């Protein structure tokens, strides 16, 4: 355990130092982040006005969902995209060999090796939006709510990670799968809006098949104090299933890994 923590510290320290060399890029990232948040709030606002609601959600409540989406998007720019995107390269160039030879768990290494600080401000902005919009919507922040909200955010994060990781891991067979993750990202964009705003059939898909509901809507419901216990339990259950599944899938996929050009 201690070895893993020490490795993480080294991983992220070096990644941070490496990224800080590209300061203009950081600035562009910051601009892109502010622009895209402004754009998505604008798109959301088109659905409201004159006392309208979206799937039974008020403007402020829907902003909480938007905030959670922004936060998770920050998480994926910081960890998921740079790390899981690199798996394809490792497979294609055969450098996964070196990862497998290291005296450390390979899934841990490929999932957490890099940290791109460009996503951190986005996570911060998402949190600010969540707290601001939730207080406007009349949410009360008791210790219990905050703890459950953090737990459900983690559930969302784990599900997101597992989905993305499994798709990235299929590159062991198909080599070029980074556009499969583009498909996933396109579908995940549906998480910008509360799941009840979709037609019933899609709602079912977004709850059980591609559990987008647990990424943004359920944590927002917890924060707004309207969560239903069965949904929380289902979320926890799915997170465990997805994580265990991703682990099993990785071990299974590695059995088929034959390095590059062999």
């Amino acid at each position, binding site marked *: 355990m201690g070895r893993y923590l020490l490795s993480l510290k080294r991983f992220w320290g070096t990644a941070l130092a490496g990224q800080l060399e590209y300061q203009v890029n950081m600035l562009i990232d910051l601009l892109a982040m502010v622009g895209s948040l402004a*754009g998505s709030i604008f798109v959301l606002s088109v659905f409201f006005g004159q006392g309208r609601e979206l799937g039974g959600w008020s403007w402020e409540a829907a902003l909480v969902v938007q905030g959670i989406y922004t936060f998770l998007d920050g998480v994926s720019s910081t960890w998921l995209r740079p790390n899981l995107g690199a798996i394809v390269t490792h497979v294609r160039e055969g450098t996964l060999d070196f990862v497998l030879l290291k005296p450390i768990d390979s899934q841990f290494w490929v999932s957490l090796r890099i940290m791109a600080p460009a996503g951190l401000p986005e996570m911060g902005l998402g949190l600010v939006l969540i707290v601001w919009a939730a207080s406007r919507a009349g949410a009360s922040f008791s210790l219990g709510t905050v703890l459950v909200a953090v737990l459900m955010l983690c559930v969302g994060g784990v599900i997101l990670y597992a989905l993305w990781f499994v798709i990235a891991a299929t590159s062991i067979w198909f080599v070029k799968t980074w556009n499969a993750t583009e498909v996933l990202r396109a579908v995940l964009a549906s998480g910008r809006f509360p799941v009840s705003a979709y037609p019933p059939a899609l709602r079912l898909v977004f709850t059980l098949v591609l559990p987008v509901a647990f990424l943004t809507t359920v944590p927002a419901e917890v924060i707004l104090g309207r969560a239903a216990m069965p949904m929380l339990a289902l979320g926890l259950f799915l997170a465990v299933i997805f994580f265990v599944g991703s682990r099993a899938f990785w071990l299974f996929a590695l059995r088929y890994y034959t390095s590059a050009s062999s």
Partner: protein
Amino acid sequence: MKIAGLSWPVVRALLASQHANMVQYRAEIALWALSGVLPFIMLSLWSESDAGASLGFKGVGLARYYLSVFMVRQFSVVWVVFAFEEDALLGRLSPFLLQPLHPLWRYVAAHVAERVTRFPFSIGIAAIFFLLYPTSFWLPSLGQFLLACLAILLAFSINFLLQSLIAALCFWSEKASALERLLLIPYLYCSGWLVPIAAFPDAARTVCFWTPFPYLIDFPARVLAGLSVDFVAGFVAQLFWVALLLPLVLMAWRAGVRRYTAMGA
């Protein structure tokens, strides 16, 4: 006979080789086609919302609009920045520059070949859409179809020129693709990709129509879907943007090539 460095055998060779190259990546291209599902997500959102009902965005017209957005995107996607950045960084650009052919033509050929490979997948997704929404089925009249093709072609040209302009900046900075991310934001929100521009507040709509973005998606999609649209104004604006961007791209390119020193020099 040569026009802009192109002769018939050159065109044929370029297209044939690029097509052979693209066919190798059929599965990848199918996934790219699938990653354009965003308009369908937005459609399902609109069809359920109160706002859709009160703004009059619902029913068959809206479904056709979003399907057209999907099709327009399928045929006007451009990735010059990424291809060019890779070629410049890996030094593949140097042999291209020695050939008596503007390197941008090579990318044009790649895009055309990719469209041909992608076509059956796009049509397949449209067919599934019609199976799910049978009432929205329509076939544009021949005139409408030809006008839509022209509008999409011009949209592709504007998109291509915009990206080539950014790609030309690769000659000065090694990370021009970061700038492409900035370009993507107004493209995403001001083009009618997510929300029809007609649903925007008046002020926002006016601002949008001063940018090239509505002519990249909103205008061709409306033509294809057979919605009410000002043809003359749309085509004039599209041609204006092409006429404005083309000399800019050529100038930036020429200035860039002059200072190009290949990697490691």
